[in-house]
Structure formats: structure tokens, C-alpha cells
């Protein structure tokens, strides 16, 4: 009875909105407007500005004398940029692969119904709670030949032991991989563990009855089930790799020389310390391109997947 009597009132409200109704309709938009405006301006606005600057001959201060794609041409001819890009390939590739392998391995070990799993999980996950700056500083000390691992092993009597990657121009980039893997693999483990927990126990039992050995069960049955997890992990790790800046600054400072530069440190160095705003902007735009190249397929597949249910 109450349902039928309230219906005409609703209809009237819809046909002739009162001021309260109008406010209610606009309220969400009003509340959201500031943050939308701020992110439009500071994210997309500055992105656009960076793009404009990358087309000018700006040096210490922005100028608006357009030189077309001149800065991009200079960038392509810049040896330090190529070092930074190659480093990103090495660092990003190794970082993502090692984190995935190690994270999956740890997760499988942790999934064997062991005792104190909660405590172990926290221990492995804890590095993720640290800032890359802290990680960088800690590993700088550990890897310092005069203070860290090398000095310790030598003090045990192995006088010829050498572990000087941090000061070796050919190896410095690998120290970034070590520190970043230490920080992020626990997180990947947590992702995989969640994925493993989502797998029906009886699937593994069925595979056992089918005669598959444990490594085969994981390889053929379990890991394929974890494909969405692998995908998310790669996305997260890849974008951590591309925007890595603080780790490099804290651990190697881009050195020795510029041997362990990444695009982010290259961009920072040129735009803010070497008075090459135009060149820095161009490198920033290329990094954005890199991020989008990863992000767009991801979003595409995610949104398409949702539609198919």
C-alpha cells in the first residue's frame, strides 16, 4: 500500500525538480570538481607544457622559440641518453624477470601449509614498506667495497674476494637490480600467494590423480591459472622500473660517471641541474611514451575482459 501511494510523489518530483533536488543532483559534481580541476591542471596541464617545452630551445629558463623536433634529434645523438635507455632495458628486464621468478618461487614455498606463515609473509613483504631512498642507502653501505660485503668477507680471511659492482662502471647498473629486487620481490610474492590461494584445492588433487608430478602440476596447471596475476605484476613492476629515480639517486647517484643513469635521472639532470630544459622535456616525453606503451594495452585488455564478464 505504501508503495503505490509513494509512486505519484516520485513522478512529480522528477517532472518538476525542486531546488533541493537540483542541489542533490549537482552535489557530487561540486564535491569532485576541485580534485578534477587540480589533476587536470597539474597532471595533464603540465604534461602538455612539458610537450610544448620539448619543442622549444629552452635552456635555463623556459623560452617559447620553437625549434620543431630539434631537441628530440639532439636527444637521439646524445650518448648519455643511450646509456640511460640501455640501462633501463637491462634494469627493467632483469628487475621484472627476477622479481617474477623469485616472487612465484617464494609464494609456492609459502603455500605448502607451513608454520608461522603469517610472520614469514610479513618479513618478505616488509621491504615494500620502505622508501626506495632507504633501500638505496642501506644497499650503498652493504655494497660499498670498503665497508660492506667485500670488506666483511675479506676480514674473514678471503683476501682476494672482490665485490665492487657499485664502483665498477660496467656492473653498477646490476646493483640497482639487486636492491630493487630485494625491495619488490616480497610484494610480488604476496600477489602470487593471493593467486595461489584462489585456486581450488581439488584441481591440484585431480592433477595428482592424473599422474602429474609436483613440478608439472605447477608448470602445467597452477601457473597458467595465475596468468592474470603475472599480468598485473608485470604492469606494476614495469612502471616501477620506468619511473625509478630515488633508488638511483640514493644508491649510485647515476655513477660512476653516468654509467648507471636511468632516463628519470637523465631527465632530472638535464632539466634541473644542467640547464637543458628543452632536452630534459624531450626525454620526459619519451618516458611518458614508454609508460603509455605498457599502460594502454593493459587498460584495453582489462576493460575488454570486464565486458565479456
Amino acid at each position, binding site marked *: 500500500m505504501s508503495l503505490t501511494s509513494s509512486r505519484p510523489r516520485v513522478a512529480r518530483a522528477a517532472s518538476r525538480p525542486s531546488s533541493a533536488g537540483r542541489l542533490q543532483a549537482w552535489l557530487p559534481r561540486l564535491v569532485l570538481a576541485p580534485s578534477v580541476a587540480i589533476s587536470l591542471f597539474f597532471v595533464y596541464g603540465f604534461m602538455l607544457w612539458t610537450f610544448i617545452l620539448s619543442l622549444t630551445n629552452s635552456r635555463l629558463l623556459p623560452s617559447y622559440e620553437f625549434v620543431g623536433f630539434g631537441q628530440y634529434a639532439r636527444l637521439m645523438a646524445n650518448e648519455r641518453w643511450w646509456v640511460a635507455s640501455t640501462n633501463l632495458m637491462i634494469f627493467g628486464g632483469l628487475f621484472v624477470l627476477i622479481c617474477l621468478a623469485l616472487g612465484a618461487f617464494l609464494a609456492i614455498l609459502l603455500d605448502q601449509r607451513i608454520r608461522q606463515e603469517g610472520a614469514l609473509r610479513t618479513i618478505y613483504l616488509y621491504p615494500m614498506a620502505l622508501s626506495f631512498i632507504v633501500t638505496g642507502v642501506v644497499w650503498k653501505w652493504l655494497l660499498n667495497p670498503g665497508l660492506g660485503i667485500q670488506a666483511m668477507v675479506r676480514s674473514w680471511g678471503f683476501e682476494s674476494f672482490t665485490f665492487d659492482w657499485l664502483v665498477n662502471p660496467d656492473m653498477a647498473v646490476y646493483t640497482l637490480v639487486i636492491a630493487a629486487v630485494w625491495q619488490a620481490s616480497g610484494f610480488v610474492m604476496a600477489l602470487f600467494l593471493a593467486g595461489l590461494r584462489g585456486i581450488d584445492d581439488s584441481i591440484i588433487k*585431480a592433477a595428482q590423480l592424473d599422474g*602429474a608430478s609436483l613440478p608439472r602440476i605447477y608448470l602445467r596447471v597452477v601457473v597458467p591459472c595465475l596468468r592474470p596475476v603475472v599480468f598485473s605484476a608485470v604492469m606494476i613492476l614495469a612502471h616501477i622500473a620506468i619511473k625509478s629515480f630515488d633508488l638511483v639517486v640514493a644508491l649510485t647517484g647515476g655513477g660512476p660517471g653516468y654509467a648507471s643513469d636511468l632516463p628519470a635521472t637523465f631527465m632530472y639532470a638535464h632539466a634541473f641541474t644542467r640547464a637543458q630544459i628543452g632536452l630534459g622535456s624531450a626525454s620526459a616525453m619519451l618516458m611518458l611514451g614508454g609508460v603509455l606503451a605498457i599502460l594502454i594495452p593493459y587498460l584495453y585488455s582489462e576493460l575488454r575482459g570486464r565486458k565479456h564478464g
Partner: protein
Amino acid sequence: MSALEIRKVRKDFGSERVLKEVSLAIDSGEFLILVGPSGCGKSTLMNAIAGLEPVTSGEIHIAGEDVTWRTPAERDIAMVFQSYALYPSMTVRGNISFGLEMRKMPKAEREAAVERVADLLQMSHLLDRKPSQLSGGQRQRVAMGRALAREPKVYLFDEPLSNLDAKLRVDMRTEIKKLHQRLGTTIVYVTHDQIEAMTLADRIAVMRDGHILQLGTPDEVYNDPVDMFVAGFMGSPSMNFIAATLEGAPGRFQLRIVTPEEDDLVLPWPRQRETPAMTEQVGRDVVLGLRPEHFSEEDERLAGQAEGTPLSARVSVSEPTGADILLRLPLGEREVTARVGPTCRVAPGERLALRVDMARAVLFEQANETRLA
């Protein structure tokens, strides 16, 4: 030689004994159903047969070989799970042939086996789909196909139909029965659904608290239960238990049922159903077990010739199911359920003349709920 033999199997989880010396033997081609309420140990027993749970003590033999300490893969068994447990990343074809591949069967034979099973279960059109694209019934079919492809010595079914809706469950039940009749496979089937147990089984093992209470044909378990638990568990609506006092002497035993606000009802116990144990129980409280179908409405056309003991009771509720009518009527201290024909017209509150088929009634001791007669 039995296809599967379980000898004094025990299983402890910590200090809790889940299986207490379970022994049973199944002939080749037999369909055995383990039935019981949840927590009775039937799934644990199933997992022990499969090798998924090591037993604490006892032996398991399959086709005459001791497999107690063999891995699941070495036991030559296949299992159908409640959740179907299909490999989500593989097609139906992949799911069926995975076990064959793991057993290093050549590709051509594997494909022939997949075709054979797909024909058998009429799912050739589904072979290239992924499990996520199948309906519940189709997944169930694939899970069965996966088991059939391997042609193992023993099939284990772990509540395979409980995730299906009611209509599909009945269809699949028939299909499993047809399949068993055609292939003559040895099947151990776990369920908590006593109708599934009755319809499918060659023999039923009723379990409770880690024991097998009764092992027998559906007819034995239904009509000749060993105790009140088995009697109450099998059958739907379940058996009526009526408190009574045993009177008389051998040759003329009778049961006195005290009903509030009515005259005592006295039912003579049929002479051919007497047992020696009854003599000791004279004058004590016993429990009379009557199934709903042991009641029938008095048919005037058969007056004088009808079998059974007459009684009359006031109907409190009438529940027509279409095929028949379930009546609730007070008899003794509690109400009982009687199943009468669909043409029986009776309104609640009316008295109805009934007959009770005492020749099929069962009698239990009240103290320990065991069978008396």
C-alpha cells in the same frame, strides 16, 4: 577377487579419530555408495582410497594389490570432484587428455580416447571450449569424461551432483546409472543425499562418526535398518519414531501407545516378526518405527479383506505433493507423517480411518537405539 578392499583403516587428525577401523570390500563392477551426515568421515575415507590422505593404520588393496603407501597416480583410480576441478587454462580436450599425456600415451591413442569419451557422453561439440564457457551440467560431464578416458580400475565420485540444480541433478543421476550399467565400472560414490544413494547404489554403506553402521543393498538398508540412525537417515520423509510400551508374551506381543487426550492405542505385533530379544524387553519402553508409506487410508471397497491393523486419528495438516498426500497426525506424544493416495479427501481436523502395515514395521530399544525386531 574384490576390486577394492579396505582393511581396518584408521585415520587420526591430531588427537581426533576420524575413521575408526573401517573395513569393506567391493566386487568388480559394483556401485558402492558411502552415505552419511557431514562430518561422518565419508570424504576422509574417499581421500584415503584415492591416496590423497595417508591413513594412520590399516591397508587398502586395489585389484588384489596393496596400494596403502602408493601415490594417487600409482593406484590406477580416477576421481570426480564436487567442484568438478577442471583445469581452467585447458580446453575440454586438454582436460580429458591431460591424464593420458601424463601417463605417456602416444598422441594418436590419446585422441582416439578423447573421441571415444566425447561420443559416449555426447559432448563432441564442446571439445574446443574452455571450462569457463560451459554450464554446470556440461562441466560435470567433462569431469566424468576425464575420469572415463583413463579407464582406471576404480572410479571415485565425491558428491558429484551437489553443485547442480535440482532438475539437472535428477537427469545426471540417471545418466550416471546408465553409464554404470553400460560400462560395468567399479564405482565408489560419496553423497549426503539419501535419495541419490537409494537410486544409484548396488550397495550402500551408511556411515556415522567414523564407523560404517550398515553395509547392504538399498532394500536392506531401507527396510531392515540396524538402528534408529540408519532408519531415520534413509527415506524422505523420514521414518516415524513412536514411543510405545512392549506388553504381552511370545506369540502375543503388543505395543501400547499412549496418546494425550485419547484412548491408548494397542497394536498387536505380528507373530512372524518376533525375536527372542523381545521377551526381555516386556514392560519396557521401546520405539516403533513406521515409514510414512506403511500407513494407508481405509478403503471401503476392500472392507474386511484389507491387510494391516486399523486405527483412526485426527488429521492436523494435509500436504498434497501431487503424486500423493502427506498427512500429519498425532500418534503417541508426537505427530507422525502418513503417505496416502492422492484421491484421499480429508480436511484438517477430521478423523480418518487408516490401516498400518505392522508386518513392515520395525522395533528399536529405546535405551541404545538398536534394532529389537
